[in-house]
């Protein structure tokens, strides 16, 4: 069973990884994406105090489900779990978990990388970075 979810609560990474495991699988690859304190931008180090994520919830869930379905078409994998947290995220806390269960690890690694890349490109969720002296909406991967 695939599992897509948005939550304002802390994400239990292990639980997401476990719930996608069917009997034909031998490996689950799980990405645990969490809030980074230091970011280098234009060779300047920026310190983030915390993050706030906002989602267009109905559309974000639809897009996450589309990604899970497409990944299963394109890769030899069995199940996908995608959970994204919204609201305030402290440094080091998990913002996104993607778990991919597959009969063999190679396909799970490839699908997981594809899923996070596409999630950052298409799923309507926005990240605001809060610094000591201000805040800014992140411009996403394209700008990094």
């Amino acid at each position, binding site marked *: 069973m695939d599992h897509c979810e948005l939550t304002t609560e802390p994400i239990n990474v292990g639980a997401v990884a476990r719930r996608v495991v069917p009997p034909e699988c031998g490996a689950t690859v799980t990405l645990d994406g969490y809030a980074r304190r230091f970011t280098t931008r234009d060779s300047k180090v920026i310190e983030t105090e915390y993050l706030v*994520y906002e989602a267009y919830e109905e559309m974000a869930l639809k897009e996450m489900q589309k990604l899970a379905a497409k990944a299963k078409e394109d890769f030899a994998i069995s199940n996908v779990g995608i959970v994204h947290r919204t609201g305030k995220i402290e440094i080091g806390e998990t913002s996104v978990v993607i778990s991919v269960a597959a009969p063999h690890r190679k396909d799970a690694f490839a699908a997981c990388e594809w899923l996070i890349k596409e999630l*950052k490109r298409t799923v309507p969720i926005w990240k605001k970075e809060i610094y000591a002296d201000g805040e800014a909406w992140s411009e996403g*991967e394209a700008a990094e």
Partner: protein
Amino acid sequence: MSDMRINVLFFGATADIVGKRREELEVDGEVSAGSILDELRTRFPYLAAQKLHISIEQEYASSDSIVKAGDEIAIFTSVSGG
């Protein structure tokens, strides 16, 4: 052609720029997504500096997509989840 009302939702940077989360527009009959973007850029000039995306009924749309009465429209900047 009769008047129709369209509800536009804003998220993230666009919500901050316009200072609200939704705006009601009145248009004459069917319109394109592009003409809605033009109207919003006129109402909220600061939007003009942004690269904007538009969705119709929670699906990505292009500027020539047609908006019908009752459709849920959203305007937002490039996504940055993950």
